């Protein structure tokens, strides 16, 4: 009798559970519930498990759940992941779809901060949206160990449906290659807004993903746009950045991943970051050449908020529009640093006012006081005002 498991139940794995399953020939359901919240939720847990087994027409099984306060959508994901290791089926057991998780997003929405969440770790997901990040990334790639990839995919799907991100854009980082395309099958029908494509090196890779997304959208009648954000993480990716950005109208921005990039070019990462300057500039220019957003790499020292702030200001100075976060406390620092300062806003307001005034009067030249203002300066001022408006 083969026994399989999904999920985890260490003390730190709050909101998760480990389910162990083996199928039997007869004898009905043998269910053991070990739970931190047994006194208050044992009946609910039993019902959930029975419901899932019924949906997959499994009558005879031995199931053990070691639970650390997992909500229903986690328990059902873990059990479905167990079942799919033993039974070949296309059936899905889906949690109720939250209405607020079916909305689409626009291409030029702000993406200053995107909070990475390991896709197989439910405790971080429940409150992730509360921290006000522009986006939440459910990661199926590097943060999930190879052996847990399948269960992570099911959990991420359930998370997309059942967890309220309180206005954060729903993003999924898929795996590379064929597994990544299968990831799309699991998440596109459940209203992911943005797909992050890791280690993208060629426009062809991007097009494969784009085509798969479009065919899934047609199949599942998903009307929302699904945007793609390729992550440039290699020398080849940097060199092809413009072609990648230009490959599809569904590309929403270019992101850069510097850990892999510096490993690829064989340079150690330094605090000054000279070794990444070229790549970052390439990504900014490729993105801007296509009218897209440029998104910087994450800052990994989560205890040093001052250094993070410096880092963001440097990003902003290079032309980036946002960066990744690996801790919720980074969100506010990033937003504050990307926000135009009061001085910048005041200066921009004067220029925009002068521009409007000149337009109204049909003047060809814009002036603030005695100073002539060139069109690109007006353009930048308009962008500052737009950003300030969005933030408020």
């Amino acid at each position, binding site marked *: 009798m083969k026994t399989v498991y999904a999920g985890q139940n260490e003390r730190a794995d*709050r*909101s998760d559970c480990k389910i162990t399953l083996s199928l039997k020939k007869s004898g009905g359901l043998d269910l053991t519930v070990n739970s*931190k*919240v047994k*006194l*208050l*939720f*044992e*009946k*609910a847990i039993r019902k959930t498990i029975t419901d899932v087994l019924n949906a997959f027409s499994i009558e005879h099984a031995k199931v053990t759940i070691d639970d*650390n*306060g*997992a*909500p*229903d959508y986690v328990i059902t994901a873990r059990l479905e992941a167990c079942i799919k290791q033993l039974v070949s089926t296309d059936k899905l057991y889906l949690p109720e779809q939250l209405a607020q998780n079916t909305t689409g997003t626009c291409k030029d929405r702000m993406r200053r901060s995107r909070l990475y969440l390991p896709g197989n770790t439910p405790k971080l997901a*429940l*409150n992730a949206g*509360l*921290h006000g990040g522009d986006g939440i990334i459910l990661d199926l790639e590097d943060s999930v160990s190879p052996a847990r990839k399948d269960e992570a995919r099911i959990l991420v799907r359930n998370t997309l449906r059942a967890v309220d991100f309180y206005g954060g854009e729903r993003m999924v980082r898929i795996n590379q290659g064929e597994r990544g395309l299968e990831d799309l099958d699991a998440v596109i029908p459940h209203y992911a807004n943005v797909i992050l494509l890791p280690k993208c090196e060629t426009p062809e890779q991007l097009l494969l993903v784009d085509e798969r997304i479009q065919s899934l959208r047609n199949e599942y009648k998903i009307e929302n746009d699904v945007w793609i954000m390729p992550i440039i993480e290699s020398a080849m990716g940097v060199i092809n950045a413009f072609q990648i950005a230009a490959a599809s109208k569904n590309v929403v921005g270019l992101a850069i991943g510097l850990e892999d990039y510096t490993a690829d070019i064989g340079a150690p990462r330094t605090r000054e970051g000279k070794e990444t300057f070229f790549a970052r500039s390439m990504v900014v220019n490729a993105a801007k050449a296509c009218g897209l957003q440029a998104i910087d790499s994450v800052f990994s020292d989560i205890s040093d908020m001052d250094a993070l702030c410096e880092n963001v200001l440097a990003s902003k100075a290079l032309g980036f529009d946002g960066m990744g976060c690996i*801790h*919720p*406390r980074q969100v506010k620092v990033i937003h504050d640093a990307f926000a135009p300062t009061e001085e910048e806003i005041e200066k921009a307001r004067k220029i925009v006012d002068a521009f409007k005034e000149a337009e109204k009067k049909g003047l060809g030249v814009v002036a603030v006081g005695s100073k002539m203002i060139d069109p690109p300066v007006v353009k930048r001022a308009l962008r500052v005002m737009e950003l300030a408006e969005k933030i408020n």
Partner: protein
Amino acid sequence: MKMVKNAVGRMVPTEINGEKVVPFMGVGKHRPTGKKHAPNISTAIDYPADGDKRVPSLKEALVKSGLKDGMVISTHHHLRNGDLVANQIFDIAAELGVKGLVWLPSASFPCHKDIIKHLESGVVHHIEGSMNGPLGRFASEGKMQGMAVLRSHGGRTQAVQDGEVKIDIAVLAAPTADPFGNGHGLDGPSACGGLGYAYVDYHYADKVVVVTDNLIKFPCMPMQIEGNYVDYVVEMDKIGIPELIVSGTTQITKSPDRLLIAELTTKFCDAAGLIQDGFSFQMGAGGTSLAIGLYFHKILKERQIKARFAVGGSTQYSTKMLEDGCLEYMLDGQTFDLEAVRSMRENRLQHPAISVFHAYDYHAKGNFTTMMDVMILGATEVDVNFNGNVVTHSDGYMLHGIGGWQNCLFAKCTILPVPLFRNRIPIICDEVTTLVGPGELVDVIVTERGIAINPKRQDLIDKVKDSGLPLKTIEELKAEAERICGIPEIPEFTDKVIAAIKWVDGTIIDVVRQVKT
């Protein structure tokens, strides 16, 4: 056992451990009259003229104090989880064959789990005081002979003053003391800062024993314990374990979710106009409270204004606020870390030790608490009528004491920052498992998913309604918790009452029943 319905609709007994008790009648309704309890008259000539009250051992002190069956023995909890004295008292009682004692600690800690064996053998009949951790679990399972009586810090003082509890022997640990019995907590290997919880014990107990591991020559100043009330002084090697006395509670939370709650709480206080020059506040030493203190500090510094006074647990963070000039007075009932102990030693005027009598006592002529502008408290549960629970968990186990919680509810604005759920268990429910504080005294609940203001506080609602803060009704918060967690079952209890919960005035507000295991 005869049970009656009290003013908050809970069924409570009319008798506890053989004594008649009064059911809760409503806030401010019960007004005992008569004279306060007093200890026996003592005569100075009966005590050594040279002022040396030392006896060789705690055992001898207890024997000389007349330790016998059925006595009430009190201790304070300033040594917290590092206390080495309380357990010894009952070990000695067991050795002497004494039975049926009542222990009246101002709080108990996991280190007191050794007393379980004395509860089992009958040396200790029951405990009146907070029951944290293992003792609470033991009582919850119905294993204690008598019924536990849980009182707030203020309620303990009330009960001692009006004679509801008569302390026979108070055994008071003093990190520094002289042979006359003067003592304080400012120095010595077991330094713990103030000794405010001992105040009522040494004033009202018949016999007072001071125990120290740092005996100095007379006079030991300041006299946090006044030797003129003390019968015997015992010197021993070690009264406490320093790293457990100054416990690890004074670290600001690193949890982003708790920090978010702290941030929302601060924003609420600011939007409601509570953070003003000259305001006052009290908050505990838990991670979230400390973060709120830090945010308050930042605001005060930025605006160059000061808080006039803070009451309660002092920490390295309150010390920083004081020494930064953002806080004028730290009135200290409990000192939580070494930095705060240092501050109490060095900032004698601005950082004095105070006692429960000053802040919370129902029979005092006024309380500091009612003057406080902002009060930050915790809770294990809050119900849709804003009633709060701090002693039991949602599964019915009694795992915490009341502390000063009930007393603190009388502040001008009482705020409970709590997570909406802990490990799938919603904190906001239809009815609290144990009703420890009536909802009419709870003003604001702050969770990571929104802020609910008690509809009775229309003034607060008006002040913050345009603030952009996530204001919700308490029912909305409950629904949100249940959407995420599901609806928990109601835990099952037997009919056996294992603990009575007293209100600040000595009446019975609720009971805790034995859990079904």
